[in-house]
């Protein structure tokens, strides 16, 4: 499978905040390393879930892939060619983004038709506009499409609004969709329909999908591969069955422990204490070591690895075929 998208050693930083006085004196805050050296590929017709807690950098990574943030270092390749100043427009046609909040993504004063046609107009595609809009709405499951043309967002349900947003992405016939928490604002009974739609688009239109989510259950439902991010770095990546049922990184294991499941028991599970540190203060060595149960409970020391956990940044190594983890103990 040749990759549609390839991210190589990507770094994105934000200027740290300082007080007004310090700012006037020309002082600068510590840099926030939101994305701190990420490699990731998405193959043709592949569904990749990018998972992690809020603040781990997953949304910044998605926005950078979309060209909405400028990387400090690293490259993004689309079909083997680096994206840059030239060809950004064509790239944006090929890679479309679906945001989390369908109510916020649609202009309340625009009809469904106008919202979906907007992308065509931006890209100067005036031929057969009505046919293309109808086709996109139908692909997104809004049938018959003509019935939705003149409706406004407030006349639609949450699920229908998300379908309109997806139609707005599909109208440009992209090769890939980046979806940031596409169902987290939707009611549970409606989620399944939208996820089924995304899988159908992969099967019928051959789209590649990068789905950003905090929900590992969702990753199990839809993803071929899962990448787990912690504090700006991918700590584990591999086939969904592997990563979610045979996790190699202690952070992935901790995330899986707290997925509420039918039949689970709260009392018997280990919950990590504390919260991730902020990206201006990334711990040395393995960035997870201050919260890592393997370090806290002495297993890293027993294996003679604790000094490395504390002082040496672990590389992402292939432990099983296609299954990578960045842990000295893996």
């Amino acid at each position, binding site marked *: 499978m040749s990759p549609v998208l390839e991210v190589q050693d990507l770094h994105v930083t934000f200027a740290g905040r300082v007080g007004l006085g310090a700012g006037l004196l020309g002082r600068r805050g510590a840099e926030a390393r939101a994305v701190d050296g990420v490699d990731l590929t998405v193959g043709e017709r592949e569904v990749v879930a990018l998972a992690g807690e809020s603040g781990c950098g997953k949304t910044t990574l998605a926005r950078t892939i979309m060209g909405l943030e400028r990387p400090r270092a690293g490259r993004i390749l689309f079909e083997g060619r680096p994206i840059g100043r030239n060809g950004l427009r064509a790239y944006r046609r090929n890679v479309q983004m679906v945001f989390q909040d369908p109510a916020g993504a649609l202009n309340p004063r625009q009809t469904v038709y106008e919202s979906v046609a907007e992308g065509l107009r931006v890209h100067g595609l005036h031929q057969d506009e009505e046919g293309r809009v109808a086709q996109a709405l139908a692909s997104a499951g809004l049938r018959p499409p003509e019935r939705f043309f003149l409706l406004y967002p407030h006349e639609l349900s949450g699920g229908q609004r998300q379908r309109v947003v997806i139609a707005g992405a599909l109208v440009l016939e992209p090769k890939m969709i980046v979806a940031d928490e596409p169902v987290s604002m939707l009611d*549970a*009974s*409606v989620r*399944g*329909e939208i996820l089924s739609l995304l899988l159908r688009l992969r099967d019928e239109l051959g789209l590649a999908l990068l789905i950003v989510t905090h929900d590992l259950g969702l990753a199990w439902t839809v993803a071929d591969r899962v990448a787990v991010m912690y504090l700006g770095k991918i700590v584990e990546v591999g086939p969904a*069955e592997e990563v979610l*049922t045979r996790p190699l990184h202690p952070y992935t294991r901790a*995330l899986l422990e707290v997925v*509420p499941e*039918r039949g689970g028991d709260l009392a018997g599970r280990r919950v990590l204490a504390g919260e991730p540190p902020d990206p201006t203060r990334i711990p040395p060595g393995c960035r997870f070591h201050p919260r890592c149960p393997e370090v806290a409970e002495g297993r890293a020391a027993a294996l003679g690895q604790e000094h490395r956990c504390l002082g040496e940044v672990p590389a992402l190594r292939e432990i099983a075929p296609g299954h990578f983890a960045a842990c000295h103990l893996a």
Partner: protein
Amino acid sequence: MTLLSIRDLEVTYATEAGPVPAVRGVDLDVEAGQTVGLAGESGCGKSTIAHAILRLLPEGTRVTGRVLLEGEDVLSMSFGRLRAVRWDEAAIVFQGAMHSLNPVRRVGDQIAEAIRIHQAGATEGEALRRAAELVARVGLPARRAGEYPHELSGGQRQRVMIAMALACAPRLVVADEPTTALDVMVQAQVLALLEQLQAEMGLGLLFITHDLSVLRELCDRIAVMYAGRVVEEGPAASVLGAPGHPYTQALAGAFPSIGDPTDRRAPGGLAGDPPDPQRIPPGCSFHPRCPARFEPCDRVDPSLYPVDEGRRAACLLHDPARAGATT
């Protein structure tokens, strides 16, 4: 005596577009020391019930039925009595901790204020000491009581909200989506805290959420709401383990089990959306979306029929008069 006993509660909001029936006849009990989950999707009426319990609904809202707190009807009590009951006997933890805390006051002072208003004898020093104790009780270092809300993370603020709810040692705590805005790891921390406090203090806990998967671990009993009514109610393990109502079944199916091959690439869910409360379908309100509907469902409005030990479901599949007739 039952700690909280709701009987035939109906709540109708007055809006510009006319009356909106949000709760359409609900019975619900919470015993002392028990955790009851109230689940359903947005608009099903679950938060309206939380607000009705402490009479926090907007003026002009029509509320009928009874809300008995240790036998005393909240809906008919005097305002003075109601003020005493709020916090002292029943307290509520809301979803958005950021918006419920005063941003320009230290969190310890805010907890102490609640104590002093409700406990006439308490001096400022005593109230602050007790506030620091409560902050420690919910798992934060006591010194955090001296910080402002913006200095705390979302999970820490939600802990402060829980400390505040416990300030006057209430017997009932109503938690309305207390973990919805939190990350999974922090959500697990807050749930573990609630479970521990509930056990240690013998609280009655009414836990309201759209996320059924959270309830299984936390609750003794679960009530599932749809379109303003309870459609299934019973022990948590049986409601989620073997749902009696097709809606509960669909909700439970919306949360996959990681590792279960039947959930791979097969998102569960229902077609359609919950009904507009001003246009509730005739017959069973769930019938237009129901995968199991049969002939009379669009005409007959089912009541809660017994399913098994301690469990009832509002579905004609369980109507004893039709037993065996359909399946």
